[in-house]
């Protein structure tokens, strides 16, 4: 029974995770118990097999791919732009609004119909824009 209790603690003993008293008890027990010594050796073999599992070498572009993904995501999310840029953008919006108030919205005037009015004289589009132009 006592042997079973010690055995269940061998894993933590091997890892150096038992408190002083229990650790010392197990050290003493191991001197006289061949079965527990064998069990401890088995645990060490298991760990060495796990530690011996092969490692992967990261791909050469591992870091650069991550940096590229960050850049892409930041471009996609304007709210993630640096604080200074976000403040500047708000300031420019405010300045634009003040400019509109002072200048009386003059820059909103467009000449859309004039730009579309150069169709050939006998075409349907020319006739349409003539009618629209007369109605304005």
């Amino acid at each position, binding site marked *: 029974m006592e042997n079973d209790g010690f055995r269940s603690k061998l894993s933590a003993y091997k890892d150096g*995770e038992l408190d002083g008293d229990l650790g010392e008890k197990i050290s003493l027990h191991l001197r006289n118990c061949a079965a527990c010594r064998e069990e401890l050796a088995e645990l060490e073999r298991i*760990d060495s097999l796990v530690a011996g599992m092969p490692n*992967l*070498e*990261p791909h050469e572009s591992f870091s650069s791919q*991550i940096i590229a993904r960050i850049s892409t995501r930041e471009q996609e999310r304007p709210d993630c732009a640096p604080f200074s840029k976000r403040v500047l953008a708000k300031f420019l919006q405010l300045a634009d609004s003040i400019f509109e108030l002072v200048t009386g919205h003059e820059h909103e005037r467009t000449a859309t119909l004039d730009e579309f009015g150069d169709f050939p004289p006998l075409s349907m589009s020319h006739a349409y824009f003539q009618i629209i132009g007369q109605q304005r």
Partner: protein
Amino acid sequence: MNDPADCGGSLREADGEYELIEAIGAGDILAFETLIKRYRDPVLNFIFKYMGDRFGAEDIAQEVFLRVYRAASEYEPKGKVSTWIFKIAYNLSLNEVKRRSRFCPITDIDERGFELAEANHTGLRELAEEVMDAVRHLPEKQRAALLLRVNEGLSYAEIGNILSASISSVEALLFRARGNLKKILIGRSEE
């Protein structure tokens, strides 16, 4: 016994890691590259051995670093940076394993085989494949605890933090993981 100040194993807490995370939070790409260089190998290999799939592991590892970058500005230095990074890696890997298990049971994954770059010798390669396969048949938490302990040398407290488990639970997980792995390997050698 473990010295509490000693992180042990292959990943030791480097000086200035909190400052590094702070710099990353402020958008410092050079600091981020330094962090990637420091953690890329252990994170990638933890995921690879946990999932058993090279290409999936690279994708998940990249996603881990993206999450680190995005969360760096809100990072609170309560625990170690390494524990935080491995917690992200564990959670993402676990989600992926669960997602895959809905479409592809583990017995099907077994037939894929692995690319084992370092195990050139046929006997060693077979043994390595056998061990990797046996590790993948361990229950999720046992597998994670074993890899974090044996390959990364993390303490029970750190593993508990990553797996959201108590220290006594981690002790039980590792005891069972080693026992189960032994049974699986002995069972296969007798077949």
